[in-house]
C-alpha cells in the first residue's frame, strides 16, 4: 500500500508539472539567462587519479583580492612545480576550516598551505594534520603555538603598520583629529596593525583619535560607519584603516560627502587601492608581499616533501613596503618591482 500510494503521488506531481508549459518555459528561460550571464566565469578544477602529489591551499574568502592573490600565486607555483592543487576557502570560520583539513587528510595531501581562520582556533586543525603526517605551511597569519606547523611565513605586520602610521602622521602634519577603522576583532593581524599604528601616532600630542570602530574588514560596513562618524566629527582630518577594503569603503563615504580632502590610508597594497593612489584618491597603503609569501610557502613545502625539512626556521617574516604616489606605479598585484 505505501508503495502504491507513493507512486500515484509522484505521478500526480509530475503530471501537474509536465502539463504546465509555463513552468518549463520559466525553467528554460532561467537556464538560458544563467548561461548568458555566467559564460565568462571560470572555475579551477583539479585532475583526480593522477600520480601527482597534492597540495591543498586553504585561505579566507577570495572576495578580498588579497586572499585571491594568495590563492592564485600558491596555485600557480604549485602547478608549475608539478603538483596537483585543491583550493578551498574557510570564510574565517574555524569549524569550516577544520572540515577542510579533514578533506585534505582523507585525500592524502602531501602538504597544506594555510592562511588560517584564527590564531588559537586553528591550532587543533594544524595539529590534526601533523598527526596524520601532513605538514602545514602557514602564510599571512600566525598561530599562537610553535612546533605544530612546518613553517609560518608572514609579512611583518607590525613593521608595516609603523610605516603606515609614520606616513599617516606625516600627511596629517602631526596634528588634528582622526578616526581608525579596525579589522575583524578575532583576527590577530587586526590587533597587531592597530598596535603598530598607535606606537607611532600616540607619540604626537597634536593627533587625537576621535573615533575607533571595527568594520570587520568589510567595504560596505566601512562606508556606513564612516558616513556616521563624519556626522559626529565633521572636522575629521584623516582616517587610518586596518586594510584596503575598509579604506575603499571609507573613501567612497568621503566622496559621497564631498570630503575627498580627508586623508585615507590603508594596508595590503591591493590593486584597487594602488589605482586610487595613482589618481590621488587614497593617499597611501602598505604593501604586503602576499604573492611572494604564498610562493615561498610552496617552495618550502616542496623542499619538505623531498628532504623532510624546509631548511629554514619555523617563523619567518617578510618586510612590508610603503606605497605612495611616488612608487605606486611599481606595484602590480601584490608584487613590488622597485
Amino acid at each position, binding site marked *: 500500500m505505501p508503495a502504491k500510494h507513493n507512486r500515484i503521488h509522484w505521478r500526480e506531481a509530475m503530471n501537474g508539472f509536465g502539463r504546465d508549459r509555463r513552468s518549463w518555459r520559466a525553467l528554460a528561460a532561467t537556464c538560458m539567462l544563467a548561461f548568458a550571464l555566467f559564460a565568462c566565469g571560470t572555475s579551477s578544477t583539479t585532475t583526480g587519479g593522477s600520480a601527482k602529489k597534492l597540495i591543498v591551499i586553504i585561505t579566507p574568502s577570495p572576495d578580498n583580492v588579497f586572499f585571491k592573490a594568495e590563492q592564485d600565486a600558491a596555485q600557480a607555483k604549485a602547478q608549475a612545480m608539478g603538483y596537483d592543487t585543491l583550493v578551498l576557502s574557510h570564510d574565517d570560520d574555524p569549524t569550516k576550516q577544520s572540515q577542510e583539513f579533514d578533506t585534505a587528510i582523507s585525500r592524502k595531501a602531501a602538504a597544506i598551505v594555510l592562511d588560517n581562520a584564527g590564531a588559537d582556533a586553528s591550532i587543533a586543525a594544524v595539529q590534526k594534520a601533523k598527526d596524520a603526517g601532513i605538514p602545514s605551511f602557514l602564510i599571512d597569519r600566525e598561530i599562537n603555538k610553535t612546533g605544530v606547523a612546518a613553517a609560518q611565513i608572514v609579512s611583518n605586520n607590525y613593521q608595516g603598520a609603523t610605516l603606515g602610521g609614520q606616513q599617516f602622521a606625516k600627511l596629517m602634519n602631526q596634528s588634528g583629529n582622526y578616526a581608525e577603522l579596525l579589522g575583524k576583532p578575532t583576527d590577530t593581524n587586526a590587533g597587531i596593525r592597530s598596535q603598530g599604528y598607535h606606537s607611532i601616532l600616540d607619540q604626537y600630542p597634536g593627533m587625537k583619535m576621535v*573615533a575607533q570602530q*571595527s568594520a570587520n574588514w568589510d567595504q560596505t560596513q566601512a562606508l556606513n560607519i564612516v558616513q556616521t562618524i563624519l556626522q559626529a566629527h565633521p572636522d575629521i582630518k584623516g582616517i587610518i584603516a586596518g586594510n584596503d577594503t575598509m579604506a575603499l569603503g571609507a573613501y567612497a563615504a568621503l566622496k559621497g560627502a564631498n570630503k575627498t580632502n580627508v586623508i585615507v590610508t590603508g594596508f595590503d597594497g591591493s590593486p584597487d587601492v594602488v589605482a586610487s593612489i595613482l589618481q590621488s584618491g587614497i593617499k597611501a597603503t602598505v604593501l604586503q608581499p602576499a604573492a611572494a609569501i604564498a610562493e615561498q610557502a610552496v617552495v618550502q613545502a616542496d623542499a619538505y616533501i623531498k628532504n623532510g625539512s624546509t631548511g629554514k626556521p619555523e617563523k619567518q617574516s617578510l618586510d612590508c613596503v610603503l606605497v605612495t604616489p611616488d612608487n605606486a606605479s611599481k606595484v602590480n598585484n601584490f608584487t613590488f618591482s622597485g
Partner: protein
Amino acid sequence: MKIIDRPRVGVPAEQVTSTIAFNRIRVGMLLLRLRALIALIVLIIVFSFLSPSYLTAGNLIVMTRHVAINAILAIGQTFVILTGGIDLSVGSIAGITGMISGGLLDQGLALPIFGVVVFFSVPVVIAIGLLVGIVFGGVNGLAITRFRVAPFIATLGMLYVARGLAELRSNGGTFPNLAGRSGLGNTGFEFIGVDSVLGIPVGIWLMVLFGVVAALIAARTPFGRRVYAVGGNARAAVLSGIRVNRIKLAVYMISGFCAAMAGLILTSELGAAYPDTATTYELNAIAAAVLGGTSLSGGKGTIVGTIIGAFVIGFLSDGLVLVGVSTFWQLVVKGAVIVLAVVLDQAQERLQARITLR
C-alpha cells in the same frame, strides 16, 4: 477570528467587567500597537542626549540613507511574510544583482559567438538588474508553488545558490570601477546611490516611492487583500476562489524585485561590486518586518509598520556607532530589541483577546 477560540480561563473576571480597567486596557492596547513608533521616538530622545550630533539634519539623512536599503528589502519581505512565507534569499539576491550590474558596467557583456563585447547604458543595466531580481524571486516562487518546497527551505537554497553565482560571476573578485566611460555612454550609475535630489539622496526617495506604492498595493487593491487572505487562512482563500499559487508566486517576485533595487543602490553607493555585498541583510529585513508588527504566521502586518521597524533598527545601530559603543555590544543590543519586539507583540495579542472577549 482565531482569537475568539481562545479559552476564557486566565482572564480575571473583575477586569473584564470593570469599565475603568477596560479603558486602561484600551490605552495599553494603543501604546502596544504604536510600540515601534514609540520605540523610535525614545531612541531619538535617548541618543540626542548621548550625542549632540545625533539629531542634526545631516545625521538624520545619513541614517535614513542606511535605513533605505533595509526598508526596501523589508517591504518585499513583508509581502512574503503576509502570505505566511519567508524569504531568506533577499541578501543574496541583492548581492547577485550588484555583481551582474557591476559586471555589465565594468566589463560589459561578452558575446564570444559574435566576437564583441556589448556595453549597455545605465538605465538598461538597472533594468537588467531588476529583472534578475524578479527572475530569482520567480524561481523561489516556482519551487514553492509548483514543487511544493517549504518557503524556508526553497529560499534557504536560493540564499546559497545566488551567493555562489555572485562569486562565480567574478571568480570571487571585485568590480572596482562602476563609473562607466563616457565613450561607451554608460556613465551615471552613481545617480541611484550617491546623488541627491532636492538635498535628499536618491536612495531615500526610492524608499519613499517603494513605501507609498507598496502600502497602496497592500491596503487598497484586490491583490493586496488576497495577499492578506492567503496568509490569514490559505484554505479559506482557496475556497473563496483566490488563486493562491499565483499570489504566492507574485509575492516572491516582488521580494526579488525589492532585493534587486536594494542591491543596486548599495552597489552604486559603494562605487564597487563585490560578491559578499549584503550578506545577512535578509535577517535585517525580517527583523524590520517583525519589529513593525508583521506576524511570522502570516495575515497580519502593514507596510508602514515595517518601514518604522527598519527605522528603529537603523537609527539604533547608527546611534550606537555614533556614541562609540563596541561592535560586540551593538550585536547584543540589536538582538535584545528584536526579541523584546516579539514579546510586546504577544502582549498585544493577549490584550486583544481580552477586548474581543468583552
